[in-house]
Protein backbone atom coordinates (compact mmCIF):
# COMPACT_ATOMS: atom_id res chain seq x y z
CA UNK A 1 0.00 0.00 0.00
CA UNK A 2 1.15 3.52 -0.83
CA UNK A 3 0.34 6.25 1.68
CA UNK A 4 -0.14 9.85 0.54
CA UNK A 5 0.45 12.04 3.58
CA UNK A 6 -2.43 14.43 4.16
CA UNK A 7 -1.16 17.12 6.53
CA UNK A 8 -3.63 19.81 5.49
CA UNK A 9 -1.59 21.40 2.73
CA UNK A 10 -3.29 21.69 -0.62
CA UNK A 11 -5.66 19.24 -2.15
CA UNK A 12 -4.64 15.75 -2.96
CA UNK A 13 -7.51 14.84 -5.25
CA UNK A 14 -5.48 14.89 -8.48
CA UNK A 15 -2.55 13.03 -6.98
CA UNK A 16 -4.80 10.27 -5.63
CA UNK A 17 -6.62 10.10 -9.00
CA UNK A 18 -3.37 9.77 -10.92
CA UNK A 19 -2.18 6.90 -8.72
CA UNK A 20 -5.52 5.13 -8.98
CA UNK A 21 -5.42 5.55 -12.76
CA UNK A 22 -2.25 3.48 -12.89
CA UNK A 23 -3.70 0.84 -10.62
CA UNK A 24 -2.04 1.79 -7.34
CA UNK A 25 -3.35 0.59 -4.03
CA UNK A 26 -3.13 3.95 -2.31
CA UNK A 27 -4.65 5.86 0.54
CA UNK A 28 -4.73 9.56 1.39
CA UNK A 29 -4.15 9.60 5.12
CA UNK A 30 -3.52 11.78 8.15
CA UNK A 31 -2.84 8.77 10.34
CA UNK A 32 0.73 8.25 11.51
CA UNK A 33 -0.08 4.55 11.98
CA UNK A 34 -1.09 4.08 8.36
CA UNK A 35 2.05 5.88 7.22
CA UNK A 36 4.15 3.60 9.42
CA UNK A 37 2.54 0.51 7.90
CA UNK A 38 2.83 1.68 4.26
CA UNK A 39 5.13 0.07 1.70
CA UNK A 40 5.71 3.42 0.06
CA UNK A 41 5.14 6.99 1.17
CA UNK A 42 4.41 10.10 -0.87
CA UNK A 43 4.90 13.52 0.69
CA UNK A 44 3.03 16.13 -1.37
CA UNK A 45 2.91 19.85 -0.71
CA UNK A 46 2.01 23.24 -2.16
CA UNK A 47 2.19 26.79 -0.85
CA UNK A 48 4.84 28.26 1.40
CA UNK A 49 7.51 26.05 2.98
CA UNK A 50 7.17 27.54 6.47
CA UNK A 51 3.46 26.81 6.67
CA UNK A 52 3.89 23.29 5.27
CA UNK A 53 6.78 22.51 7.61
CA UNK A 54 4.83 23.67 10.66
CA UNK A 55 1.83 21.50 9.75
CA UNK A 56 3.97 18.48 8.91
CA UNK A 57 5.85 18.53 12.21
CA UNK A 58 2.99 19.56 14.53
CA UNK A 59 0.77 16.78 13.17
CA UNK A 60 3.40 14.16 14.00
CA UNK A 61 3.21 12.95 10.40
CA UNK A 62 6.67 14.33 9.63
CA UNK A 63 8.10 12.06 12.30
CA UNK A 64 6.30 9.05 10.80
CA UNK A 65 7.67 9.88 7.35
CA UNK A 66 11.15 10.31 8.77
CA UNK A 67 11.04 6.93 10.51
CA UNK A 68 9.83 5.22 7.35
CA UNK A 69 12.59 6.84 5.33
CA UNK A 70 15.21 5.75 7.87
CA UNK A 71 13.83 2.19 7.71
CA UNK A 72 14.46 2.17 3.95
CA UNK A 73 10.83 2.55 2.80
CA UNK A 74 10.67 4.41 -0.55
CA UNK A 75 9.68 8.04 0.05
CA UNK A 76 8.78 10.43 -2.76
CA UNK A 77 8.44 14.15 -2.11
CA UNK A 78 6.56 16.25 -4.66
CA UNK A 79 7.01 20.02 -5.11
CA UNK A 80 7.08 21.54 -1.61
CA UNK A 81 7.07 17.93 -0.37
CA UNK A 82 10.40 17.49 -2.15
CA UNK A 83 11.73 20.70 -0.64
CA UNK A 84 10.82 19.39 2.82
CA UNK A 85 13.32 16.55 2.35
CA UNK A 86 16.20 19.03 2.69
CA UNK A 87 17.88 20.54 5.73
CA UNK A 88 16.29 23.95 5.49
CA UNK A 89 14.47 26.46 3.32
CA UNK A 90 15.13 30.17 3.00
CA UNK A 91 11.59 30.99 1.86
CA UNK A 92 10.34 33.94 3.97
CA UNK A 93 12.86 33.25 6.73
CA UNK A 94 14.76 30.09 7.56
CA UNK A 95 12.86 26.92 8.37
CA UNK A 96 14.19 23.43 9.04
CA UNK A 97 13.09 20.53 6.86
CA UNK A 98 13.35 16.78 7.41
CA UNK A 99 17.09 16.81 6.71
CA UNK A 100 16.99 13.57 4.71
CA UNK A 101 19.08 15.06 1.90
CA UNK A 102 21.88 17.62 2.40
CA UNK A 103 21.20 21.06 1.01
CA UNK A 104 18.79 23.95 1.24
CA UNK A 105 15.88 25.45 -0.65
CA UNK A 106 16.53 28.82 -2.24
CA UNK A 107 14.76 31.42 -4.44
CA UNK A 108 15.13 30.64 -8.14
CA UNK A 109 15.72 34.34 -8.81
CA UNK A 110 19.28 33.83 -7.49
CA UNK A 111 19.99 31.34 -10.27
CA UNK A 112 18.04 32.35 -13.37
CA UNK A 113 18.56 35.25 -15.77
CA UNK A 114 16.92 38.51 -14.77
CA UNK A 115 13.63 39.30 -16.48
CA UNK A 116 12.28 35.76 -16.46
CA UNK A 117 8.92 35.23 -14.87
CA UNK A 118 8.81 33.86 -11.33
CA UNK A 119 7.27 31.43 -10.49
CA UNK A 120 8.31 29.17 -13.31
CA UNK A 121 4.92 27.95 -14.50
CA UNK A 122 4.61 25.47 -17.32
CA UNK A 123 6.15 22.53 -19.12
CA UNK A 124 9.91 22.27 -19.18
CA UNK A 125 12.28 19.55 -20.36
CA UNK A 126 14.01 17.32 -17.84
CA UNK A 127 17.71 16.67 -18.36
CA UNK A 128 18.51 13.38 -16.73
CA UNK A 129 21.85 13.68 -14.92
CA UNK A 130 22.00 10.19 -13.48
CA UNK A 131 20.23 7.00 -14.44
CA UNK A 132 17.69 6.24 -11.75
CA UNK A 133 14.90 3.66 -11.34
CA UNK A 134 12.41 6.56 -11.18
CA UNK A 135 13.24 7.29 -14.82
CA UNK A 136 12.81 3.71 -15.98
CA UNK A 137 9.88 4.58 -18.26
CA UNK A 138 10.83 8.09 -19.41
CA UNK A 139 13.47 9.61 -21.65
CA UNK A 140 15.97 12.41 -21.32
CA UNK A 141 14.31 15.61 -22.57
CA UNK A 142 10.75 14.62 -21.69
CA UNK A 143 8.60 17.54 -20.57
CA UNK A 144 7.10 17.82 -17.10
CA UNK A 145 4.93 20.47 -15.43
CA UNK A 146 6.50 22.93 -12.98
CA UNK A 147 4.99 25.56 -10.68
CA UNK A 148 7.60 26.93 -8.28
CA UNK A 149 9.58 29.94 -7.10
CA UNK A 150 12.11 28.01 -4.98
CA UNK A 151 14.30 25.01 -5.71
CA UNK A 152 16.79 22.78 -3.91
CA UNK A 153 20.45 23.71 -3.89
CA UNK A 154 22.23 20.46 -3.15
CA UNK A 155 25.52 18.70 -4.00
CA UNK A 156 25.57 17.26 -7.52
CA UNK A 157 25.56 13.68 -6.30
CA UNK A 158 21.92 14.05 -5.19
CA UNK A 159 20.63 15.66 -8.40
CA UNK A 160 19.20 13.05 -10.76
CA UNK A 161 17.60 15.55 -13.16
CA UNK A 162 17.60 19.26 -13.75
CA UNK A 163 15.88 21.73 -16.02
CA UNK A 164 16.94 24.86 -17.85
CA UNK A 165 15.02 28.04 -17.07
CA UNK A 166 17.58 30.65 -17.95
CA UNK A 167 19.80 28.88 -15.43
CA UNK A 168 19.95 25.33 -14.16
CA UNK A 169 17.24 24.44 -11.66
CA UNK A 170 16.99 21.21 -9.68
CA UNK A 171 14.31 18.98 -11.19
CA UNK A 172 14.57 15.71 -9.27
CA UNK A 173 16.75 14.41 -6.44
CA UNK A 174 17.53 11.10 -4.81
CA UNK A 175 19.48 9.75 -1.89
CA UNK A 176 18.96 6.01 -1.54
CA UNK A 177 15.28 5.31 -0.90
CA UNK A 178 14.46 9.03 -0.55
CA UNK A 179 13.44 10.76 -3.78
CA UNK A 180 11.88 14.03 -4.80
CA UNK A 181 10.43 15.81 -7.85
CA UNK A 182 10.21 19.58 -7.98
CA UNK A 183 7.64 19.24 -10.79
CA UNK A 184 4.18 17.72 -10.51
CA UNK A 185 4.15 14.17 -11.91
CA UNK A 186 0.38 14.02 -11.35
CA UNK A 187 -0.01 16.93 -13.80
CA UNK A 188 2.66 15.90 -16.29
CA UNK A 189 0.58 13.71 -18.56
CA UNK A 190 1.84 10.27 -19.57
CA UNK A 191 5.44 11.14 -18.60
CA UNK A 192 4.34 11.96 -15.07
CA UNK A 193 2.29 8.79 -14.80
CA UNK A 194 5.32 6.83 -15.93
CA UNK A 195 7.43 8.34 -13.15
CA UNK A 196 4.75 7.40 -10.61
CA UNK A 197 4.53 3.92 -12.16
CA UNK A 198 8.26 3.45 -11.62
CA UNK A 199 7.96 4.63 -8.02
CA UNK A 200 5.17 2.12 -7.37
CA UNK A 201 7.48 -0.68 -8.43
CA UNK A 202 9.89 0.16 -5.64
CA UNK A 203 9.81 -1.30 -2.16
Amino acid at each position, binding site marked *: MTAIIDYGVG*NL*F*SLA*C*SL*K*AIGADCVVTDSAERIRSADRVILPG*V*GAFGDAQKKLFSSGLGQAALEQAQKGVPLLGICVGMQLLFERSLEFGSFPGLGLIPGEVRYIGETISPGL*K*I*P*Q*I*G*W*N*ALSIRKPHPLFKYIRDGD*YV*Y*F*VHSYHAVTPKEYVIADT*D*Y*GGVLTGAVASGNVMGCQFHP*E*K*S*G*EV*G*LNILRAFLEMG
Partner: protein
Amino acid sequence: MIAKRIIPCLDVRDGRVVKGTRFQGLNDVASPVDLAAYYSQQGADELVFYDITASSDGRKIFTDILSEAASRVFIPLTVGGGISSLDDFDRVLKCGADKVSVNSCALRNPDLIREAAVKYGSQCVVLSVDAKRVDGRFRVFAKGGREDTGLDLMEWIKKGLDLGAGEIVLNSMDTDGVKEGFDLEMLSLVAAIAHVPVIASGGAGKMEDFATLFRAVPGVDAGLAASIFHYGEVKIPELKEYLRNENINVRI
Protein backbone atom coordinates in the same frame (compact mmCIF):
# COMPACT_ATOMS: atom_id res chain seq x y z
CA MET B 1 13.51 26.47 -21.61
CA ILE B 2 9.87 26.48 -20.82
CA ALA B 3 7.58 25.46 -23.66
CA LYS B 4 4.86 27.60 -25.20
CA ARG B 5 1.52 26.13 -24.23
CA ILE B 6 -1.43 25.24 -26.45
CA ILE B 7 -4.73 25.35 -24.58
CA PRO B 8 -8.13 24.24 -25.88
CA CYS B 9 -11.10 25.81 -24.13
CA LEU B 10 -14.29 23.83 -23.53
CA ASP B 11 -17.52 25.73 -22.91
CA VAL B 12 -19.78 23.49 -20.87
CA ARG B 13 -23.53 23.97 -20.53
CA ASP B 14 -25.77 21.48 -18.74
CA GLY B 15 -23.06 18.88 -18.84
CA ARG B 16 -22.35 19.14 -22.56
CA VAL B 17 -19.68 20.88 -24.59
CA VAL B 18 -21.10 23.73 -26.60
CA LYS B 19 -19.72 23.91 -30.15
CA GLY B 20 -18.42 20.33 -29.97
CA THR B 21 -18.42 18.70 -33.34
CA ARG B 22 -16.96 15.78 -35.26
CA PHE B 23 -13.79 13.92 -34.35
CA GLN B 24 -12.48 10.71 -35.70
CA GLY B 25 -12.31 8.07 -33.02
CA LEU B 26 -14.46 10.01 -30.60
CA ASN B 27 -18.08 8.92 -30.36
CA ASP B 28 -19.47 11.56 -28.08
CA VAL B 29 -17.93 14.89 -28.97
CA ALA B 30 -20.27 16.71 -26.66
CA SER B 31 -19.02 14.84 -23.62
CA PRO B 32 -16.62 17.18 -21.82
CA VAL B 33 -14.81 14.27 -20.22
CA ASP B 34 -14.27 12.36 -23.48
CA LEU B 35 -13.22 15.52 -25.28
CA ALA B 36 -10.81 16.46 -22.49
CA ALA B 37 -9.24 13.00 -22.60
CA TYR B 38 -8.98 13.25 -26.38
CA TYR B 39 -7.26 16.64 -26.29
CA SER B 40 -4.89 15.49 -23.58
CA GLN B 41 -3.93 12.49 -25.67
CA GLN B 42 -3.46 14.79 -28.68
CA GLY B 43 -0.91 16.84 -26.76
CA ALA B 44 -2.87 19.76 -25.30
CA ASP B 45 -0.74 21.32 -22.55
CA GLU B 46 -3.60 22.39 -20.39
CA LEU B 47 -7.40 22.57 -20.56
CA VAL B 48 -9.84 25.29 -19.69
CA PHE B 49 -13.37 24.32 -18.67
CA TYR B 50 -15.73 27.21 -18.88
CA ASP B 51 -19.00 26.78 -17.04
CA ILE B 52 -21.72 28.65 -18.92
CA THR B 53 -24.58 27.16 -16.95
CA ALA B 54 -26.87 29.54 -15.15
CA SER B 55 -28.76 27.22 -12.81
CA SER B 56 -27.57 25.62 -9.59
CA ASP B 57 -28.51 22.17 -10.95
CA GLY B 58 -26.15 22.90 -13.81
CA ARG B 59 -23.41 23.84 -11.35
CA LYS B 60 -23.66 20.44 -9.71
CA ILE B 61 -23.49 18.66 -13.06
CA PHE B 62 -20.45 20.79 -13.92
CA THR B 63 -18.50 19.87 -10.80
CA ASP B 64 -19.37 16.18 -11.30
CA ILE B 65 -17.95 16.42 -14.79
CA LEU B 66 -14.88 18.21 -13.53
CA SER B 67 -14.18 15.43 -11.01
CA GLU B 68 -14.57 12.84 -13.71
CA ALA B 69 -12.23 14.74 -16.05
CA ALA B 70 -9.68 15.15 -13.27
CA SER B 71 -9.70 11.42 -12.67
CA ARG B 72 -8.90 10.70 -16.32
CA VAL B 73 -6.84 13.65 -17.51
CA PHE B 74 -3.49 14.39 -15.90
CA ILE B 75 -2.59 17.82 -17.21
CA PRO B 76 -3.39 21.17 -15.58
CA LEU B 77 -7.08 22.08 -15.54
CA THR B 78 -8.35 25.63 -15.29
CA VAL B 79 -11.95 26.34 -14.44
CA GLY B 80 -13.85 29.54 -15.10
CA GLY B 81 -17.38 30.84 -15.37
CA GLY B 82 -19.46 32.27 -12.57
CA ILE B 83 -16.69 32.25 -9.97
CA SER B 84 -17.78 34.90 -7.49
CA SER B 85 -16.59 33.82 -4.05
CA LEU B 86 -14.00 31.84 -2.15
CA ASP B 87 -16.66 29.15 -1.80
CA ASP B 88 -16.69 28.85 -5.59
CA PHE B 89 -12.90 28.49 -5.59
CA ASP B 90 -13.19 25.81 -2.96
CA ARG B 91 -15.94 23.98 -4.83
CA VAL B 92 -13.97 23.60 -8.06
CA LEU B 93 -10.54 23.09 -6.49
CA LYS B 94 -11.90 20.14 -4.50
CA CYS B 95 -13.13 18.60 -7.74
CA GLY B 96 -9.74 18.66 -9.37
CA ALA B 97 -9.22 22.16 -10.79
CA ASP B 98 -5.64 23.41 -10.53
CA LYS B 99 -6.38 27.03 -11.37
CA VAL B 100 -9.50 29.13 -11.20
CA SER B 101 -10.22 32.01 -13.50
CA VAL B 102 -12.19 35.08 -12.51
CA ASN B 103 -13.60 37.74 -14.81
CA SER B 104 -16.81 39.75 -14.26
CA CYS B 105 -17.04 39.03 -10.56
CA ALA B 106 -13.52 40.29 -10.02
CA LEU B 107 -14.50 43.51 -11.77
CA ARG B 108 -17.36 43.93 -9.32
CA ASN B 109 -15.28 42.80 -6.36
CA PRO B 110 -11.52 43.08 -7.07
CA ASP B 111 -10.74 41.94 -3.54
CA LEU B 112 -11.74 38.43 -4.57
CA ILE B 113 -8.40 38.23 -6.39
CA ARG B 114 -6.46 39.15 -3.27
CA GLU B 115 -8.42 36.88 -0.95
CA ALA B 116 -8.04 33.92 -3.29
CA ALA B 117 -4.33 34.57 -3.81
CA VAL B 118 -3.75 34.69 -0.06
CA LYS B 119 -5.76 31.53 0.55
CA TYR B 120 -4.72 29.36 -2.40
CA GLY B 121 -1.58 31.03 -3.74
CA SER B 122 -1.22 33.30 -6.77
CA GLN B 123 -0.45 30.36 -9.05
CA CYS B 124 -4.06 29.32 -8.57
CA VAL B 125 -5.69 32.62 -9.54
CA VAL B 126 -6.14 33.43 -13.22
CA LEU B 127 -7.45 36.83 -14.22
CA SER B 128 -9.44 36.56 -17.42
CA VAL B 129 -10.06 39.85 -19.21
CA ASP B 130 -12.28 40.70 -22.19
CA ALA B 131 -11.16 43.90 -23.89
CA LYS B 132 -11.65 45.91 -27.06
CA ARG B 133 -10.86 49.23 -28.63
CA VAL B 134 -13.16 52.11 -27.78
CA ASP B 135 -12.26 55.63 -28.94
CA GLY B 136 -8.65 54.67 -29.51
CA ARG B 137 -8.21 53.08 -26.07
CA PHE B 138 -8.37 49.51 -24.86
CA ARG B 139 -11.35 49.11 -22.59
CA VAL B 140 -12.40 46.26 -20.30
CA PHE B 141 -15.80 44.61 -20.75
CA ALA B 142 -17.79 42.55 -18.28
CA LYS B 143 -20.48 39.89 -18.55
CA GLY B 144 -19.02 38.05 -21.50
CA GLY B 145 -18.40 41.26 -23.38
CA ARG B 146 -21.90 42.66 -23.02
CA GLU B 147 -21.10 45.47 -20.61
CA ASP B 148 -18.57 48.27 -21.07
CA THR B 149 -17.03 48.89 -17.66
CA GLY B 150 -15.32 52.07 -18.80
CA LEU B 151 -12.12 50.73 -17.23
CA ASP B 152 -8.83 51.13 -19.04
CA LEU B 153 -7.27 47.75 -19.87
CA MET B 154 -3.78 48.58 -18.65
CA GLU B 155 -5.08 50.00 -15.38
CA TRP B 156 -7.13 46.89 -14.71
CA ILE B 157 -4.27 44.52 -15.53
CA LYS B 158 -1.93 46.43 -13.21
CA LYS B 159 -4.51 46.33 -10.45
CA GLY B 160 -5.12 42.60 -10.96
CA LEU B 161 -1.40 41.89 -10.77
CA ASP B 162 -1.04 44.02 -7.63
CA LEU B 163 -3.87 42.07 -6.03
CA GLY B 164 -2.05 38.82 -6.73
CA ALA B 165 -3.32 37.34 -9.99
CA GLY B 166 -0.86 34.64 -11.07
CA GLU B 167 -1.76 34.43 -14.73
CA ILE B 168 -3.60 36.59 -17.27
CA VAL B 169 -5.91 35.36 -20.01
CA LEU B 170 -6.37 38.23 -22.43
CA ASN B 171 -9.27 37.87 -24.80
CA SER B 172 -9.46 40.48 -27.52
CA MET B 173 -13.07 41.04 -28.51
CA ASP B 174 -11.82 42.80 -31.64
CA THR B 175 -10.16 39.68 -33.03
CA ASP B 176 -12.38 37.04 -31.37
CA GLY B 177 -14.27 35.01 -33.96
CA VAL B 178 -12.58 36.78 -36.89
CA LYS B 179 -9.99 34.02 -37.33
CA GLU B 180 -7.36 36.31 -38.78
CA GLY B 181 -4.86 36.03 -35.98
CA PHE B 182 -4.38 37.09 -32.38
CA ASP B 183 -4.47 40.74 -31.33
CA LEU B 184 -0.73 41.33 -31.32
CA GLU B 185 -0.99 45.01 -30.47
CA MET B 186 -3.12 44.48 -27.39
CA LEU B 187 -1.08 41.46 -26.28
CA SER B 188 2.24 43.31 -26.63
CA LEU B 189 1.07 46.07 -24.31
CA VAL B 190 -0.10 43.65 -21.66
CA ALA B 191 2.91 41.32 -21.97
CA ALA B 192 5.20 44.30 -21.44
CA ILE B 193 3.87 44.93 -17.94
CA ALA B 194 3.00 41.40 -16.82
CA HIS B 195 5.50 39.51 -14.66
CA VAL B 196 3.19 36.49 -14.73
CA PRO B 197 2.27 34.22 -17.67
CA VAL B 198 0.06 35.77 -20.34
CA ILE B 199 -2.32 33.58 -22.32
CA ALA B 200 -3.53 34.92 -25.66
CA SER B 201 -7.14 34.33 -26.62
CA GLY B 202 -9.29 35.39 -29.55
CA GLY B 203 -8.49 35.29 -33.22
CA ALA B 204 -6.70 32.04 -33.97
CA GLY B 205 -7.78 30.75 -37.37
CA LYS B 206 -4.84 28.69 -38.58
CA MET B 207 -1.52 27.23 -37.44
CA GLU B 208 0.47 30.20 -38.69
CA ASP B 209 -1.39 32.48 -36.29
CA PHE B 210 0.25 30.70 -33.36
CA ALA B 211 3.75 31.01 -34.84
CA THR B 212 3.14 34.70 -35.51
CA LEU B 213 1.89 35.17 -31.96
CA PHE B 214 4.86 33.54 -30.24
CA ARG B 215 7.37 35.25 -32.52
CA ALA B 216 5.86 38.74 -32.44
CA VAL B 217 5.11 38.76 -28.71
CA PRO B 218 7.76 36.67 -26.91
CA GLY B 219 6.20 37.59 -23.56
CA VAL B 220 3.12 35.52 -24.39
CA ASP B 221 3.30 32.05 -22.83
CA ALA B 222 0.31 30.29 -24.32
CA GLY B 223 -2.30 30.39 -27.05
CA LEU B 224 -5.88 29.51 -26.23
CA ALA B 225 -8.59 28.64 -28.74
CA ALA B 226 -11.90 26.82 -28.88
CA SER B 227 -13.70 26.39 -32.16
CA ILE B 228 -10.71 25.79 -34.41
CA PHE B 229 -9.81 22.80 -32.25
CA HIS B 230 -13.42 21.65 -31.81
CA TYR B 231 -14.10 21.83 -35.55
CA GLY B 232 -10.82 20.16 -36.37
CA GLU B 233 -9.62 23.13 -38.44
CA VAL B 234 -6.38 23.01 -36.50
CA LYS B 235 -5.23 19.67 -35.10
CA ILE B 236 -2.99 19.85 -32.05
CA PRO B 237 -0.36 17.25 -33.08
CA GLU B 238 0.07 18.98 -36.45
CA LEU B 239 0.15 22.39 -34.82
CA LYS B 240 2.89 21.31 -32.41
CA GLU B 241 4.93 19.68 -35.16
CA TYR B 242 4.59 22.84 -37.24
CA LEU B 243 5.64 25.09 -34.35
CA ARG B 244 8.65 22.91 -33.62
CA ASN B 245 9.72 23.19 -37.25
CA GLU B 246 9.36 26.94 -36.89
CA ASN B 247 11.83 26.76 -33.98
CA ILE B 248 9.26 27.48 -31.35
CA ASN B 249 9.72 25.46 -28.17
CA VAL B 250 6.71 23.22 -27.67
CA ARG B 251 6.15 20.00 -25.79
CA ILE B 252 5.83 17.02 -28.11
